[in-house]
C-alpha cells in the first residue's frame, strides 16, 4: 500500500534526475531524438512531457516515428533494472509460452541485455506501462507530421510541405518558416512559399488573406486553386469585396497558367502521338507505299517485334521456355539473370533483335507468298489477310492467349516537368526514336547502293531488270526492310500497352490511314500526315474533352480530305500506280 503511494513519487524524482542528467549530457553533445523521447517518458509532469515532445519538431530522425508509433500502440514499458535505474523499453515480437517478449531499449534501439550480456525477455504485466493521453497523442502526431519536413529525401520533404499546406493549420507555420530558412531545393522552396501562403489564407485577418492571395497569384500553382476558390465563395457570402477581388485575380492567374500548360502539353502529346503513328506506319510506307503490296499482315510484323522484346526481357532475366506449335519443338532459352542497370538495358538490346526478327519473318513471307502476287494487288490483300490470321493463331499457340507483360525500363518510366508541363520519358523517347528511324530510312534510300537499287526497281522494274539489277533480290530486301521497321515499332509499343496475339490488329487501320493520307509512295508525306493526325487528334481531345469524339472527327476529316485529294498530301509516282 505504502509502495503504491510512493511509487509515483519515486518515479517522479527519478525521472527528474534522469531528465536533468540528460540535460547535462545534451549540453555536452547534441542529444539524440531517442534520448529526448526517453526524457519525455520519464518526466511525470504532463505539460513538461508535451514540451519535450514538441522540442523534437523539425528533426528528421526516423526513429521518432518508430518510437511514437510504439508509444501510441501501448508497446512501451519502463523496466526497473536491478541497480534501480529506470529503462524505457519497447516490447516486440510474439509472446512465448511464459508470456515473455523481446525488449528493445528506447534510448538506443538495441535489445535490452542483462549483466551477462544476454538479451532479456520480459513479461508486459510485470512492467510499468508508459501511459499516453489525448494531449500527448496530439503532440506526437504533430511531431510525426512534421518529421518528413526534415527528411533527407527531397520527394518526402515536398510531400510533407504540401500536406501541411493543404491542411491549413496555423500551428504548423513556425515549422514551415524554419524550414524555409534552411531549404536549398528551389522546387521545395516554392512549395514552402505556397504552403505558408495557404495557411495564411485561413487566417481570420483579411489583410493577411489578401497578402497571401497576392503571393499565390504570383506563384500561380494549380494545386492551390481549390482552396482559393473555396475562400472566394466564403468571402462572397460574407460580403468582403477586397478578398473576392484578390481571390479572383489569383484564380485568373492560375487559369492563365493552366491554359498555357495545356497548350504546350497538348502540343507535346500531339507530337508524341504523331510519332507513335509514324513509327508504326513507316514500315508500311515502304511495303505498301513503295512496293505497292497491300500487306494486311503488317500488324503481325509489329507483334513479332513486340514478342521479340518480351523474349529479350526474359533472356536478360530468368530465361523462358516455350514450345513451337505443330512441330512440337521445345525451346529453352537460358536466362542471364542480370539485375539492376544491366537488366534495364534489355530494351536497348531488344531494338536490333526486334528489327532482325521481323525482317526475317518479312523476308520469309515475301519468298513464300508475296512474290507470286506482285501483279495482283487484290489477291495479295486476301493472301496477306490469311497470313495475318495464321500468324495470330501461331502467337496464341506459342505464347498463350493471355497478354504478356513487358516492363518499362527505369529510363523510360519517369518524366521531366518543365513549367508544369510533363514530358514523359517514353514519349520523349518515341519522338527521338521516330526522328532517328526516319533519318535512317532517308539515308538508306538515298545514300546507299541498296537504296539506289530500291528506288530504281520501284520506279521501273522492267528497265532496272534490263540493266542487270536482280529485281527479285531487291524486292525481297525492300520487303524485309519494311517488315523490320514494323518490328521496331513493335519494340516501342511494348512501352505503351499490352503485348498479345492480336495486338497488331489495333495498329493496322491507323497505319494504312497514315500512309494513304500522306500520299502512297512518299515517305515525307507519311511523316507529315502522321504528325498532323497526331496533333489534330490530341487537340480535339483537349477541346472536346472526349477521346472518342476527337477520333471520329479526325476520321471524318480524313474521309473528306481524301475526297478532295485522293492521292494524299504528296502524290508520288510509283509502280503500283502505273
Amino acid at each position: 500500500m505504502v509502495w503504491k503511494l510512493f511509487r509515483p513519487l519515486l518515479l517522479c524524482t527519478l525521472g527528474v534526475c534522469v531528465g536533468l542528467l540528460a540535460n547535462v549530457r545534451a549540453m555536452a553533445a547534441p542529444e539524440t531524438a531517442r534520448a529526448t523521447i526517453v526524457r519525455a517518458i520519464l518526466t511525470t509532469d504532463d505539460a513538461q512531457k508535451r514540451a519535450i515532445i514538441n522540442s523534437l519538431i523539425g528533426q528528421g530522425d526516423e526513429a521518432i516515428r518508430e518510437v511514437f508509433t510504439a508509444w501510441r500502440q501501448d508497446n512501451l514499458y519502463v523496466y526497473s533494472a536491478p541497480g534501480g535505474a529506470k529503462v524505457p523499453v519497447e516490447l516486440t515480437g510474439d509472446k512465448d509460452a511464459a508470456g515473455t517478449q523481446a525488449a528493445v531499449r528506447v534510448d538506443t534501439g538495441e535489445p535490452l541485455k542483462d549483466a551477462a550480456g544476454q538479451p532479456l525477455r520480459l513479461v508486459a504485466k510485470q512492467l510499468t506501462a508508459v501511459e499516453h493521453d489525448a494531449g500527448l497523442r496530439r503532440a506526437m502526431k504533430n511531431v510525426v507530421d512534421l518529421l518528413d519536413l526534415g527528411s533527407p529525401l527531397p520527394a518526402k520533404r515536398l510531400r510533407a510541405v504540401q500536406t501541411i499546406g493543404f491542411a491549413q493549420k496555423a500551428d504548423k507555420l513556425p515549422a514551415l518558416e524554419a524550414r524555409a530558412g534552411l531549404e536549398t531545393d528551389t522546387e521545395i522552396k516554392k512549395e514552402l512559399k505556397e504552403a505558408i501562403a495557404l495557411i495564411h489564407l485561413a487566417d481570420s485577418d483579411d489583410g493577411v488573406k489578401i497578402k497571401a492571395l497576392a503571393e499565390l497569384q504570383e506563384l500561380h500553382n494549380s494545386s492551390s486553386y481549390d482552396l482559393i476558390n473555396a475562400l472566394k465563395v466564403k468571402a462572397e457570402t460574407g460580403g468582403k469585396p477586397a478578398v473576392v477581388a484578390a481571390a479572383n485575380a489569383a484564380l485568373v492567374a492560375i487559369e492563365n497558367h493552366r491554359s498555357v500548360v495545356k497548350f504546350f502539353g497538348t502540343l507535346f502529346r500531339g507530337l508524341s502521338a504523331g510519332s507513335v503513328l509514324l513509327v508504326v506506319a513507316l514500315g508500311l510506307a515502304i511495303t505498301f507505299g513503295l512496293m505497292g503490296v497491300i500487306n494486311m499482315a503488317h500488324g503481325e510484323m509489329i507483334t513479332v517485334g513486340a514478342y521479340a522484346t518480351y523474349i529479350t526481357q526474359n533472356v536478360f532475366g530468368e530465361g523462358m521456355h516455350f514450345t513451337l506449335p505443330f512441330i512440337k519443338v521445345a525451346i529453352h532459352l537460358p536466362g542471364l539473370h542480370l539485375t539492376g542497370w544491366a537488366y534495364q538495358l534489355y530494351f536497348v538490346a531488344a531494338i536490333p533483335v526486334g528489327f532482325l526478327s521481323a525482317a526475317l519473318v518479312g523476308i520469309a513471307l515475301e519468298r513464300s507468298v508475296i512474290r507470286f502476287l506482285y501483279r495482283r494487288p487484290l489477291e495479295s490483300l486476301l493472301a496477306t489477310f490469311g497470313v495475318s490470321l495464321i500468324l495470330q493463331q501461331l502467337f496464341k499457340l506459342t505464347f498463350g492467349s493471355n497478354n504478356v507483360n513487358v516492363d518499362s525500363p527505369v529510363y523510360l518510366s519517369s518524366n521531366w516537368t518543365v513549367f508544369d508541363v510533363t514530358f514523359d520519358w517514353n514519349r520523349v523517347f518515341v519522338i527521338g526514336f521516330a526522328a532517328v528511324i526516319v533519318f535512317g530510312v532517308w539515308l538508306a534510300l538515298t545514300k546507299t547502293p541498296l537504296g539506289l537499287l530500291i528506288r530504281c526497281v520501284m520506279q521501273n522494274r522492267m528497265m532496272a531488270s534490263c540493266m542487270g539489277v536482280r529485281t527479285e533480290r531487291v524486292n525481297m530486301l525492300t520487303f524485309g526492310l519494311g517488315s523490320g521497321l514494323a518490328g521496331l515499332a513493335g519494340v516501342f509499343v511494348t512501352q505503351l500497352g499490352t503485348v498479345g496475339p492480336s495486338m497488331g490488329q489495333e495498329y493496322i487501320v491507323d497505319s494504312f490511314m497514315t500512309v494513304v493520307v500522306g500520299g502512297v509512295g512518299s515517305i515525307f508525306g507519311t511523316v507529315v500526315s502522321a504528325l498532323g493526325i497526331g496533333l489534330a487528334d490530341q487537340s480535339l481531345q483537349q477541346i472536346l474533352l472526349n477521346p472518342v469524339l476527337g477520333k471520329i472527327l479526325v476520321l471524318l476529316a480524313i474521309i473528306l480530305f481524301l475526297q478532295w485529294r485522293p492521292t494524299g498530301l504528296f502524290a508520288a509516282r510509283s509502280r503500283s500506280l502505273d
Partner: protein
Amino acid sequence: MITKFSKLLSVGALALVALVAAARAADTVKVGVLHDLSGTMAISETSLRDILLFTFDEINAKGGVLGKKIVPVIVDPGSVWPIFAEKSKQLLEVDKVAVTFGCWTSVSRKSALPVFEKDNGLLFYPVQYEGEEESQNVCYTAEAVNQQAIPAVDYFIAQGKKKFYLIGTDYVYPQTTNLVLLEYLLSKGVPLANIGGGYKKDGSGKIISAGKYTPFGHKDYQQIIAEIKDFASSGDACVISTLNGDTNPPFFKEYAAAGLTADTCPVVSYSIAEDEFRSLPAKDLVGQIGCWTYFQSIDSPENTKFLADFQAWLKTTTADGVVKEGRVVDSPMVLSYDGVYLWKACVEKAGSFDVDKVRAAWKSGVSFVGPGGKVTTQPNMHLTKTVYIGESKADGQFKILKTFPDVYGEPHLKGTFKAKE
C-alpha cells in the same frame, strides 16, 4: 432357332443396358456450365469452367447432392452473345439440367435471361455487375455495386480523399456503376466540382452519364492522365476505375510515367483481380487498391484448404484444356465455387431438385462458409458476404487492408442516395 435365340439374347442385352442406364440416371443429376471457352471472353471464363469442374469433383467424391452424382453438361457460346440464349434453351429443354452455372459479361446474362425465365430454369451468376436487376431465375452470387464500388469509396473517404475521378470503359457496367457512385458521392457531401471526368445532362438537367469513358481497346491515355494529374495536384484526389482488362496496361503505364503514384493519387480498379494481374505491369500497379469479396491472400483455414485442394486437383485432373501451371484464384472463381455449394445446400434443404422448391430454400436464407468467409442467401436472390479492400503487391497478390463483414447485397441503388443540400 439360332436367330430366335440371338434375337432373344439381343433383347435381353438391350433390356440390361436400359436397366443399367436407368439405374445410372437415377443416381446422377445434370448441371449446365454456360461459359465461353473460345472467343474474346475465353481468357477469363475458362478459369470459371475449371473451378466448376473442380467443385463438382469435390462434391461427387463426398457422395454428391441428395445422394446423386453431379454430371456437368458443358456448352460453349463462343463469346457470341445471342448464342447464350440458344445454348440456354438447349440446356433447359434438351438436356433438362437442374441448374446452370454461367455467364460473365452483363450482355451475355441479359441474352440468356429470357430463356431462363420462360422455361423456369435457375442460373447462378458469379461476376461483379451493375445491379438494377432481380430476376427470380437468377441466383446472383456476384458482387452488387454496394458490395464492391461503394465500400472502396468509403475507404477513400476515410483516408481523407476529397476529390474523385471516375473513369471507365464505355459499356453498361461502368456507366451504371458510375451513376450510382455519383449519387453516392453527392449524398456524402462531395460537391459536383470535386467529381472528375465530367458529366452529361439530358434536356431536363438530369445527369445521365458521369465520368470519362474510353472505348474497348483504347491505347492513348496521355490526355486523360494529364487531366488527372492536374485534378490531383491538390493532393487529396483518387481515381475510381472501371476500365476493362486490356485498356489497363496503357492506362497504368502512362500513369506511372507521368509521375503519379499510389501515394499521391491512388486508383481503385474494379475489374482487376489476381487472374487479370498476370498480364499487367505489376511494378506500375504496386500500392493500388482492389475491392472484392475474396482475395487469394485471405488467411483462413477454409481458404488454405481450398487453395491446396484446387492445386492438387489441377495436378490430377484429366479434363480437356485445363491449364495446370501458374494458376491463381480470384473472386469470380470463388463465387462460382460458393454458388455450387449454396445450390447443394438449397437442394438439401428443399429435399428436391425442383427449381421452385430450391428457390424457396434460397429465399429462406442458407449459409455456407467458403474461402472468402460466410455467405448467406437473401430473399432478393443476392448474397450477404464479406467485402475486402486490398492493396496490390509486386507479386500480383493483394494485402488486405480492411474488411467489411456481412454486407447485404442490394441491387437497386439508383435513386436511393439523396444529395446533401
